[in-house]
């Protein structure tokens, strides 16, 4: 497998997709660090994988009770949640218009 590097074009695309804005210095630093981290990650490409190995999402098999029943349960104090919002209107979160929306 080929070893990858992140080029400035791909980096700027990622910044947009991540809904971020960066200063020039910050962008230069982050791109350098991403490629340095990728040097470490690329070591994985050299690992001889065991043939029978299956990917795991958790180290241990989850012993949990599993998800709760998907039932609507009203939060007892919704006003408390709204009180923490940057802006509200008529008991709802308020945001600027969405671009292109009518």
């Amino acid at each position, binding site marked *: *497998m080929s*070893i*990858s590097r*992140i080029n400035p074009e*791909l*980096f700027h695309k*990622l*910044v947009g*997709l*991540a*809904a*971020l*804005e*960066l200063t020039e210095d*910050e962008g230069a*630093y*982050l791109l350098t*660090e*991403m490629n*340095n*981290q*990728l*040097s*470490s*990650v*690329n*070591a*994985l*490409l*050299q*690992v001889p*994988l*065991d043939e029978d*190995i299956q*990917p*795991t*999402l*958790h*180290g*241990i098999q*989850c*012993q*949990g*009770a*599993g998800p*709760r029943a998907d039932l609507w349960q009203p*939060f007892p*104090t919704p006003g*408390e*949640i709204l009180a*923490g*919002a*940057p*802006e509200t209107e008529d008991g709802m*979160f308020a*945001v*600027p*218009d*969405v*671009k292109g929306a009518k």
Partner: protein
Amino acid sequence: MSLNQLSASEVSARVRAGEISAREVLEASLQQIHAVDGCSGSLDYQPNDPAEEQKVHAFIRLTEDLARSQADEVDRKLAEGENPGILAGVPVSIKDIFTLHGIETTAASRILWNFKPPYTATPVQKLINAGALILGKANLDEFTFGSSNESSAYQPAPVNPWDPTRVPGGSSGGSTASVAAEEVALSLGTDTGGSIRQPAAFCGVVGLKPTYGRVSRYGLMAFSSSLDCPGPIARNVSDAALMLQAIAGVDPKDSTSSVLPTSNYIDALKEGVKGLRVGLSPDYAHLYYPDFETGELAQESIQKEISQAVEHAASVLADLGAEIVENVPLPNAKYGIPTYFVVSRVEAASNLHRFDGVKYGYRTPVEVEDLQDLIRRTRAEGFGSQVKLRILMGMYLSSEGFAANYYQRALKVRAMIRRDFERAFDPNGEHRLDVILTPTTATTAFKRNDVFGNTVRMQYSDQMTVSANHAGIPAVSIPGGLDANNLPIGIQFIGPDFREDLILRAGYAYEQATQTEAWRAIRPAVLSQEVKK
């Protein structure tokens, strides 16, 4: 001995016996905080007082009023003959990544400015139910993303109580510093790649990462959901066991919390190590570090005094009747950090999309064009560089065209890391281990500003701890000596699934057998007036 020096077990016993009141314990703790901690972390800190350089700065926010009401409740229960709980009157700090109802919870990030959660995290609630006194929210690396606490948006960052020119480690650095500086007896931390154990090693305290699912994650702001583990930080092994007893157990609010019954961690301590099989692995004798050009791993030796501390601990345990098993192969441990770079970044990027300036926390004050502009500007101003880096890296590694090479492969390597441990602990296998003994870190605490900014080097300070997170198994770091600079050394015991009792037993046996060693009489510099200029 002052009240602040008492262990949590002693405080609880004396409060419950009516020898001291919870209120007295609380006031002594607050006095200590005011003496050694200096100013709390803030978003607009301006350094202008040299005296602050010598302070610990463990906290973002003190919760004195809350703690006073909790102390009064403990004293009331005792007066009325009720059981106040196993942590009655014990002062505790909480890493500021756990929600606490009505108390600002920041994750050390500007983006959560003024966020007051409408609910309390389960492990925090369990501490309160057990009679603990919540004294404050401890500082951390922003969203836990770091190993030194320097990335906190709330400055000044905590320092190492043993030498304020050095970092406390991270990301639970405020927590471990607050315990080492005797400001509190216990702290609640989190460990995703070593964030309890690495700072515990750096600060000379005990830090336990339980098995994944042993302690509920409800109310913990997620970094990497398949790796995050809340756990205890204490000054001795008994206290770590006591705290684990209080916070462990199933929680209907966390579907990954385990339904398996908890052990009696406190009683188990006294069972000793006679007959226990303790493994040593050559794969934990070196640090494996990438060559930036080739991506291949180069090898560096760990600090000699740390290797010697591990050898000494093995010798102590052998004298107590443990069987030492050498040359246990854990060959995939060296891929722990590359695997972590992938798994943790992908999960972090997913978890961080929710912060957008709409529902809670910080919103940009500048005029914006539309909703997308609002979100972009809020995230640009609200997140620090380390958070942005993790989001971008996670998005890259999980993007179409790269995920097969990186994410899918990392999940397989993670399974191989897990398999190494399964083989080592297999009761019918070649090694049949009960616990594995390793260093916690490759070095003792490094100087502030020496590593910060070099994100690869910083991440590799978790080389010895991260594999237990990948495997989901429990591990504890305990003090194992001091180096030539009087900086703490941590040794680590790793155990099989849900066998926290075994690693605590091994740690306790070592701790008790080394009580008279000279290094144990030396105290952190901030407590002994030996602070270096």
